[in-house]
């Protein structure tokens, strides 16, 4: 019966030397007694050891008298802080700011980039995408989806979805709701179990089956008050009856499509079923647990290879790729977040360096005290302990304040982030303080302050060396040099942050100067979807509806023009088609955006007509099919020749008949502002009517006309709600291209102002201290004939030297770091000399301002008083 060795060794190490045998003997005795009685003995020994560890440590401290000493050290450290409230406040503010900003930014990054997705196997869910150099989007056709879903072996489930919206009527005023149409298998991919009712069955996805809908938890709470009896009820969506069959759980979110309210089964249209070149599906797949990502990629490569050799024109150069669900969702924001995280870490470093500077200054001032203590017999460890506790009395409240600041910042971010931006990000609906980020930043704060606090001891200042009296003119030199290094580091960090702010700032300015091809101001937009009622089924019905709506809207006082288009400018690159020019054999490699517009569209937008004519009211469904192309398309497809009179066969519009080009218009941006212009084909709305379209209205008072415009449209048909109403300027401001850059720029400006202030205070501190420490030297210089100006120059040299060193280091660091921000920059090079020169000017101005006061004081010192200075 031998007691277990490890816990026995642990217990004997933890217990005080004089109690070690007694305690371990007691444990051994009871262990043997239990073993004899047949009770569990080894487990008990382990349990007892683990439970006794804190008490054993306490006993050890009691024996060493440490509890009393540490208490005394704490009281002394707090008294010290109390006596120097300026120092305490500066250190606390710097630490709170550093820890708070880092924790807040890291928490937001953790939520978006790291936290597991809210799906059963989120790490194995991937986007399945087709890439083809002749096409713009990575979407799949129905035929491809069908084939892949039924035959791929690497994936346990493959599901497709497509955007949509429906008009809900019968529950108060008609309202347009965001909807998503999915194949029944998508829920299997996401691993979602409904909170109420059921998910879709395969039968629900068959054309002609009764309409069914699943509600998001939000929609169920908002529209049915959370009534379980809602399941089974029938609602009218876009004029057709749908039975509610399920409600999704509250924890379920679908960020890829901004959390739609309605989930409908995707029923392929005849065109989708029969044509391989209609690519409209987003596809998600769940990789099998036992299949590696590489094996799945290989299976897709083999399949794409087979497609390329199948002879189908639309598969001639297609490849299949997967992209992690999260990677796809965060692709747009990851560079910004990483940049902000990097900037926050720099702020944290600046804060830590600044506290080091303050602690060093205090240490220099207390050098005599420390030497006195050493001379009176305090050991090296005793002094280290006291300095450590003093550092912790700053670090602990600093970190605590930092956490409070962080949770306020996160809450502020949570409350103010724009809805369209956050709805597309995982977990953006609930930003909370991340324990991981908090722990990391608190730990690094503690370590930074402890290291700074212990520098005097770590640098080898041996206690017990004879302490100096007088001779202060030289005693402070080493400290001043060290503080100079600290200040240089502060300035360097501020320069890096300022350079980032300047580059992103210039990008924002450049973006605001981009001309999208039309005048943005005074454009109000909104979207309309015609219900699936017989009245709007025919092409004529759709054209008449648009004409009547536009006629009524144009009559609203304050609206100077109103036109319709299938997709708004600056709204993204969907609805594209490749085309063939009649008379030329092969397909062009140009993929054009197809935009159906009413006749006055180009004029209303202010887009110039460069050649030929615009679309006219006479271009009706029965007239010759005509299109207007933009300058980009004319250049890419026809080189220098005039395209007027040429005829295009557009794959997207069924391939036949051909459309004659009657005009060339100026370029108009349909993608975000930071993207190049794309080729566009404007098709008369009357010749290719669609049931969902946007209105663009020119008005001097966008807000004032919204209500009368809505009323005018309801007059045409009460089941026609106008939704997504906003000015084009507002939608540009909330677009990722502009919003993200503006957010990053603002934060970087704040961060760099803070870092610059810390740096300025540091420069001031170094110089002020150097002037005090070298007062006698100054006195001697004055006595030997130096003028006030000479002394001021000397002082400026002392203060500006570390600032200049920091500035140079900062520019080198900025040059190294700038390329990582390339994706955020627009129209400005990572090493933009104008921006860097501006940063240099600002830093130099701050450093000079910080030097001014101490230098002036030095220059005005009376020689006699300086010589007497002790």
């Amino acid at each position, binding site marked *: 019966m031998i007691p277990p060795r490890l816990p026995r060794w642990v217990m004997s190490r933890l217990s005080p030397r004089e109690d070690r045998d007694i305690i371990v003997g007691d444990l*051994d005795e009871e262990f043997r007694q239990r073993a004899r009685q047949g009770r569990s003995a080894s487990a008990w020994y382990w349990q007892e050891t683990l439970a*006794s560890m804190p008490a054993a440590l306490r006993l050890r401290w009691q024996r060493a008298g440490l509890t009393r000493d540490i208490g005394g050290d704490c009281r002394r450290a707090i008294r010290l802080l109390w006596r120097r409230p300026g120092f305490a406040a500066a250190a606390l503010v710097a630490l709170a700011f550093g820890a708070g900003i880092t924790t807040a930014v890291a928490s937001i990054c953790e939520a978006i980039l790291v936290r597991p997705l809210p799906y059963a196997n989120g790490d194995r869910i991937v986007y399945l995408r087709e890439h083809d150099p002749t096409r713009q989007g990575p979407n799949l056709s129905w035929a491809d989806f069908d084939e892949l879903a039924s035959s791929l072996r690497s994936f346990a489930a493959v599901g497709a979805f497509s955007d949509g919206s429906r008009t809900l009527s019968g529950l108060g005023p008609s309202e347009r709701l965001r909807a998503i149409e999915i194949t029944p298998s998508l829920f299997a991919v996401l691993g979602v179990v409904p909170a109420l009712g059921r998910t879709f069955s395969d039968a629900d996805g068959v054309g002609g089956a009764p309409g069914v809908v699943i509600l998001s938890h939000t929609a169920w709470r908002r529209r049915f008050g959370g009534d379980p009896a809602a399941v089974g009820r029938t609602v009218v969506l876009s004029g057709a009856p749908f039975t509610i069959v399920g409600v999704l759980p509250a924890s379920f979110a679908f960020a890829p499509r901004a959390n739609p309210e309605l989930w409908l089964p995707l029923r392929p249209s005849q065109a989708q079923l029969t044509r391989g070149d209609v690519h409209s599906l987003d596809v998600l797949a769940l990789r099998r647990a036992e299949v590696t990502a590489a094996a799945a990629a290989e299976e897709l490569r083999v399949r794409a290879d087979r497609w390329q050799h199948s002879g189908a024109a639309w598969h001639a150069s297609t490849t299949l790729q997967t992209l992690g669900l999260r990677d796809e969702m965060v692709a747009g924001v990851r560079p910004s977040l990483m940049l902000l995280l990097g900037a926050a870490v720099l702020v944290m470093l600046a804060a830590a360096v600044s506290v080091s500077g303050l602690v060093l200054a205090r240490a220099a001032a207390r050098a005599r005290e420390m030497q006195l203590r050493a001379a009176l017999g305090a050991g090296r460890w005793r002094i280290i302990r006291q300095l450590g506790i003093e550092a912790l009395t700053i670090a602990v409240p600093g970190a605590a304040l930092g956490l409070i600041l962080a949770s306020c910042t996160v809450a502020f971010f949570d409350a103010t982030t724009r809805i369209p931006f956050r709805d597309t990000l995982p977990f953006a609906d609930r930003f909370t303080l991340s324990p991981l980020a908090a722990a990391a930043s608190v730990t690094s704060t503690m370590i930074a302050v402890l290291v700074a606090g212990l520098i005097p001891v770590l640098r080898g200042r041996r206690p017990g060396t004879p302490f100096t009296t007088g001779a202060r003119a030289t005693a402070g030199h080493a400290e001043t040099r060290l503080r100079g290094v600290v200040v240089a580091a502060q300035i360097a960090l501020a320069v890096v942050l300022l350079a980032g702010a300047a580059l992103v700032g210039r990008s924002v300015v450049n973006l605001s100067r981009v001309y999208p091809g039309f005048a943005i101001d005074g454009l109000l937009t909104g979207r309309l979807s015609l219900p699936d009622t017989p009245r709007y089924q025919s092409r004529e019905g759709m054209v008449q509806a648009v004409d009547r709506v536009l006629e009524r809207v144009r009559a609203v006082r304050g609206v100077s023009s109103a036109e319709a288009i299938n997709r708004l400018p600056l709204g993204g690159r969907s609805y594209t088609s490749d085309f063939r020019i009649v008379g030329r054999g092969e397909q062009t490699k140009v993929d054009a955006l197809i935009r159906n517009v009413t006749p006055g569209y180009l004029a209303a937008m202010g887009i110039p007509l460069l050649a030929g004519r615009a679309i006219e009211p006479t271009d009706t469904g029965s007239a010759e099919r005509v299109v207007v192309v933009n300058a980009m398309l004319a250049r890419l497809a026809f080189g220098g020749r005039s395209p007027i009179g040429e005829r295009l066969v557009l794959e997207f519009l069924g391939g036949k008949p051909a459309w004659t080009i009657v005009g060339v218009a100026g370029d108009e941006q349909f993608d975000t502002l930071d993207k190049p212009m794309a080729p566009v084909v404007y098709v008369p709305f009357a010749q290719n009517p669609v049931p969902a379209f946007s209105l663009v209205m020119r008005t001097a008072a966008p807000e004032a006309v919204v209500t009368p415009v809505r009323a005018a449209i309801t007059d045409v048909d009460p089941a026609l709600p106008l939704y997504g109403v906003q000015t084009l300027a507002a939608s540009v401001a909330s677009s990722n291209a502009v919003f993200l850059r503006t957010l990053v720029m603002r934060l970087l400006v704040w961060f760099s102002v803070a870092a610059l202030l810390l740096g300025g205070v540091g420069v001031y501190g170094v110089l002020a201290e150097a002037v005090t420490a070298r007062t006698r030297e100054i006195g001697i210089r004055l006595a030997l004939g130096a003028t006030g100006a000479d002394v001021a120059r000397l002082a400026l040299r002392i203060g500006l030297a570390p600032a200049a060193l920091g500035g140079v280091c900062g520019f080198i660091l900025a040059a190294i770091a700038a390329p990582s921000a390339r994706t955020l920059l627009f129209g400005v090079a990572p090493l933009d000399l104008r921006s860097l020169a501006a940063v240099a000017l600002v830093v130099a101005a701050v450093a000079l301002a910080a030097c001014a006061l101490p230098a002036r004081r030095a220059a005005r010192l009376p020689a006699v008083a300086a010589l007497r200075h002790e």
Partner: protein
Amino acid sequence: MGRSGYLGEFEQIVLLAVARLGEDAYGMRIRAEIEGRAGRKATIGAVYATLERLVAKDYVRQGDAPGGEERSGLARRFFTVTRAGESALENARDLQTRMWAGLKLRGARRRS
């Protein structure tokens, strides 16, 4: 009675256990006595940390004796209650008695 005369609840329990065990009061026994009588889990570390405080307050005295084979030959430390310890215990009991005298709690149920 100043702060030094104050007996914490666990100190009181340990002191009473030492008093009850008389000459047989050593670590494991004291721990077992507390568990058996008070029905309260006490680790050996906590018992020794408390005994250390009681020694410092001069409420118990300690003395070591050689241990046998069952203790792997390690010494055993016996504790006895001092006069000061006895009077501290009596004070604690008197204080409780005085505080309870004539008090009936409204919510308390009478136990049979």
